């Protein structure tokens, strides 16, 4: 089997150019998808028969919540790759994930709390999923704090990578807490498309938003990754000549 693609992915300049090429595509498609999703969700979709318009918050809440989990998984995977194959780029990738992930997590928490007030009569309850999601936020913060408190990048990379990998245990807890404990929180309705418990008019925008958020993440990642790679390679030849040519 041919692994050259893998090695190419390992080379900073290649990654830099790749992400440079991709980021505009990601950016635009994200904008379009999210716009469509919002229009569909906030305008076209009918109000919920019991929640009225309050339910529309789901179009931000659910996607950001999903993304928070996905981003963490990406981060942990990248970190693991970096540890196993000693790939600087993978570490850079993991490092670039943290910020966005924390943001998504925070958004899901805030929107969730806002939604909680009308639904549960309180902003916050110490419910398994909510708690687990809060822990996820702490994990992101811990990861960033750990990186910040080491001067020597390679050490920061490898140590924070271990943290990311260890913290991965929390993701399934968040994901399945609703099934495992009898939680106040919604059980995954969308995921069970088979007997979709949502009318298409509500579901389609939600899926659009989800796709949009995902692409947005990719766009953001490609930008952050470029900055990260530059920072690490600032002494290297290819960066110098690139600056010289520019």
């Amino acid at each position: 089997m041919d692994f050259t693609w893998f090695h190419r992915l390992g080379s900073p300049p290649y990654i830099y150019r790749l992400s440079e090429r991709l980021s505009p595509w990601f950016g635009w498609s994200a904008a379009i998808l999210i716009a469509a999703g919002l229009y569909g969700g906030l305008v076209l979709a009918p109000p919920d028969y019991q929640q009225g318009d309050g339910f529309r918050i789901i179009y931000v809440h659910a996607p950001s919540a999903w993304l928070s989990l996905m981003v963490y998984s990406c981060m942990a995977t990248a970190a693991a790759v970096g540890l196993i194959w000693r790939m600087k780029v993978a570490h850079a990738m993991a490092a670039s994930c943290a910020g966005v992930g924390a943001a998504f997590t925070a958004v899901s928490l805030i929107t969730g709390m806002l939604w909680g007030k009308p639904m549960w009569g309180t902003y916050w309850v110490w419910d398994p999923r909510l708690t687990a999601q809060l822990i996820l936020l702490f994990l992101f913060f811990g990861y960033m704090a750990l990186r910040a408190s080491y001067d020597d990048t390679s050490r920061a990379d490898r140590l924070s990578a271990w943290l990311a990998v260890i913290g991965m245990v929390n993701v399934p807890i968040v994901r399945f807490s609703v099934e495992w404990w009898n939680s106040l929180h919604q059980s995954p309705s969308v995921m069970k498309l088979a007997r979709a418990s949502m009318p298409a008019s509500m579901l389609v925008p939600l899926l659009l938003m989800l796709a949009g958020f995902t692409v947005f993440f990719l766009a953001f990642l490609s930008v952050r990754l470029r900055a990260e790679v530059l920072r690490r390679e600032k002494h290297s030849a290819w960066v110098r000549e690139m600056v010289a040519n520019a």
Partner: protein
Amino acid sequence: MRHFRLLLTRDLRLAVRRPGQTLLPIGFFAMVTALFPLALSPRLEELRAIAPGVLWVGALLAALLSLDHLLRDDAADGTLEQLVAGSESLLSLVLAKVAAHWLMTGLPLALLAPLLGAGLGVPVAAMPGVIMALVLGTVCLSLLGAAAAALTLGARRGGILLTLLTLPLAVPVVIFGARATKLTIEGGSAAGAFYLLAAVAVLTLTLAPLATAAVLRIAVE
């Protein structure tokens, strides 16, 4: 094996030499549990309701308190470098450290719990369960704490970072442990909760030391 025994006895002996530092976490634990009845209106049923929380938060704090010393002291006086250079496998070093930490905090805590629990109105019948839960839980805390301590060893913001990293790792343990305790106290069947706790313990016991050893290697070199 020889290494493990040597390292373990070393830490235990050091602990005996400075009882102040060693007993501090236990003192904290005792204080937390003792102060609550004082700070609150001491109605027993109220206390009994919060007993699990008090015991477990106390245990977590006590563990954390001593974790800061788990590796930092040795790193400070340069002995850690020498230990790492000496021991051929970091795993034995980590296991020894964790074992020592648990023997000096976890175990005493678990054994002390009935005494303090009584003050919180924990029925005598529930004591074995309470102890058992704490034993399992504190093992996890020591293991996870060691990993966090290794991660923050060379870090600039030592203390708080350790707390920040341990918290998310430890919370599940505390939650499961408290649930098990609660159920035992209320006299319900706590079997399920205990299995869960045991499962977590086994999981950490198998994974944490390896991770810690790897981290320690990075931190020291």
